[in-house]
């Protein structure tokens, strides 16, 4: 049973509403009318074959301008965010854990993250943190994903192992405390121990005011981060939605049996 959460005072109980979203890159339509509503406190998972548009959806939500939104709208806490810059969305509480985190040589992780945190804090009307306060603040957050403090001294993602990169993404999420976190294949390439750590980190952050959109290929992750809903994205459309048992079905039967019967009805 999906958890339902009601908070009458809360104006943005609809955390995220994606309505008929179409997005193109160079005349090539990748998202072909995505509809998805995520309430505050919910965890949704998106699964789907390679190249179906999962990362595109994640990047469009975060504000990547490579993709042109040609139709539809995205409401985040009731506000249309399509005209907002990625940093404005981040300040509003949107967070994307990248499928492929970018290496940025020459920019120290600690410096970068403090700049990020202070930008977000400023937007929230909180005081900016100096270097010492920041270090104090992140100590706890590092333990969330058992991250090695030495990584703070290195350039952002540079030379990080695959697992370190993914952990660092979740660590950044813990630092920035977003209200809507999109995790794009954060589990891919992790060994079981690392997967548990990352999942525990995410679970520790679940609360009624924070929602998650978890993109994954593997049902395995969903044993640890148990979703309220699972959606199947194929060829730029959500073709099926269900509870967590849908993931098991997909694991067993694959996408092909879903694709066929739905094709007619969504064309």
């Amino acid at each position, binding site marked *: 049973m999906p958890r339902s959460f009601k908070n009458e005072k809360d104006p943005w109980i609809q955390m995220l509403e994606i309505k008929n979203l179409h997005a193109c890159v160079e005349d090539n339509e990748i998202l072909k009318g995505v509809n998805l509503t995520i309430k505050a406190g919910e965890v949704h998972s998106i699964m789907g074959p390679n190249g179906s548009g999962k990362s595109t959806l994640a990047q469009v939500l975060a504000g990547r301008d*490579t993709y042109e939104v040609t139709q539809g709208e995205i409401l985040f806490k009731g506000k249309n965010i399509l005209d907002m810059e990625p*940093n404005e969305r981040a300040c509003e509480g949107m967070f994307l854990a990248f499928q492929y985190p970018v290496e940025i040589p020459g920019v120290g992780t600690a410096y970068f993250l403090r700049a990020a945190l202070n930008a977000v804090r400023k937007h929230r009307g909180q005081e900016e943190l100096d270097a010492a306060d920041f270090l104090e603040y992140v100590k706890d957050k590092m333990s969330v994903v058992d991250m090695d403090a030495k990584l703070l001294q290195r350039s952002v993602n540079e030379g990080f192992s695959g697992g370190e990169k993914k952990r660092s993404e979740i660590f950044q999420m813990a630092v920035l405390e977003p209200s809507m976190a999109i995790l794009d294949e954060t589990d891919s390439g992790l060994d079981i121990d690392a997967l548990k750590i990352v999942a525990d980190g995410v679970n520790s952050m679940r609360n009624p005011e924070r929602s998650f959109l978890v993109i994954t290929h593997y049902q395995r992750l969903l044993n640890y981060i148990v979703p309220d809903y699972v959606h199947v994205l194929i060829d730029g459309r959500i073709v099926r939605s269900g509870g967590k048992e849908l993931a098991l079905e997909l694991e067993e039967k694959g996408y092909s049996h879903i694709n066929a019967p739905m094709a007619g009805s969504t064309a």
Partner: protein
Amino acid sequence: MIELMQEQDTYSAVFARMETETLDGGPEALLSLRKDAMQHFEELGFPTTKDEQWLYTNVSAIAKTTFCPATRPDVAVDAATLERESFAGCGFHRLVFVNGFFASELSDTTELDDKVTVISLTDALKQQPDTVMAHLAQYADYKTHAFAALNTAFMEDGAFIHVPKGVVVDKPIQLLFITVPNNETSNEPIVVHPRVLIITGESSQVTVLESYVGLGEQVYFTNAVTEIALGENAVIDHYKVQRESTKAYHIATMQLNQQRASNGASHVTSLGGDIVRNNINVVLDGEGCNCNLSGLYIPRGKQHVDNHLLVDHAKAHCDSREFFKGILDDDAHAVFTGKIIVRKDAQKTDGKQTNRNLLLSDSARVDTNPQLEIFANDVKCTHGATIGQLDDDALFYLKTRGIETEAARSLLIYAFASEILDEIKIEAVREQVNNILLDRLPQGDRFRGFKGLQ
């Protein structure tokens, strides 16, 4: 062609006049050196873009301008400027030159080891003419290089540094070249020909900083030549921070000749100037040398900066590295030529060239040509050049974390530069260049006080 002849004629006429008046000081050999250089300049003329070495740098603006020789300026350099430019408090030994003239009252070499000589070239020619003449113009080739010829003919003053065998100079030696308008009422473009001669003995060690500063925004021409004879097993770290007026022309030749097992490093930061050319020539004339050339250029507006490197591996077992980075904005144009010659006997040469450029505007331009000429068979040489814009993926990544576009751009630009800033080993100088860079970055203030953004 006719026009060019006339341009040279101006210098010839000035030379003829000065020959009998001002230039007639010093040893007889110097006057004949000048005459020989002048003759070569007359034959060579100013280079044109038809000249292979000057394909991308047009100096006709320099050739066409009538510059008058600088005179000892009556404009004083105020205490605050001197304090700022001479890194007060860092205890550098220094010689100061104003419009090319040695200003002893602004200089300070009192803390220097007695064994080390740091004096003006004019004084050196009086005190030890034989030593000076044995080295002067022996390295920088004026027979094929017009600007070196011009400097050799007209050099007014400059610095003479001698570090004897085994001596380690504790603090950097700064040579501060300040250019001010000839006098307060005149805006006449002037030309200055600074000359530096550095001789170091076996197993000695020294750090030299040449600072070029233009006070005001006037047009002038600095035509500098630095010669370094680096002794066996000796170490030199040579820095140049060039902050001429943005209307100035700065043409400089640095000739470094290295003896066996010596270790030479040169770092050039180009910030000012309208047309800038840094000729950096190295001859690795003994086995087992190490040579490290690096530089940063940050042109904007219509600035043109050309770094022209030539490393001649004459002997075996030498390592050389060229590492230059540029950040270009507006309509700026940069040129990088890094040539490595490996002579027949220079086996086991290890040469590496890297030139990276960051373009911040669509109208900025870079011409980069790494070149290898290899006559030996057992060598390792690599070269790489890149010209790119700010990485979109990195920008997006930073922005998704809440960092504004401007700040994200500045962060990436600063990160690009920081790698080359780390090549500056004198902390005060690194700090100076760092601060200039930050001043130019939107929201650069945010990064002040951070080292390498850690």
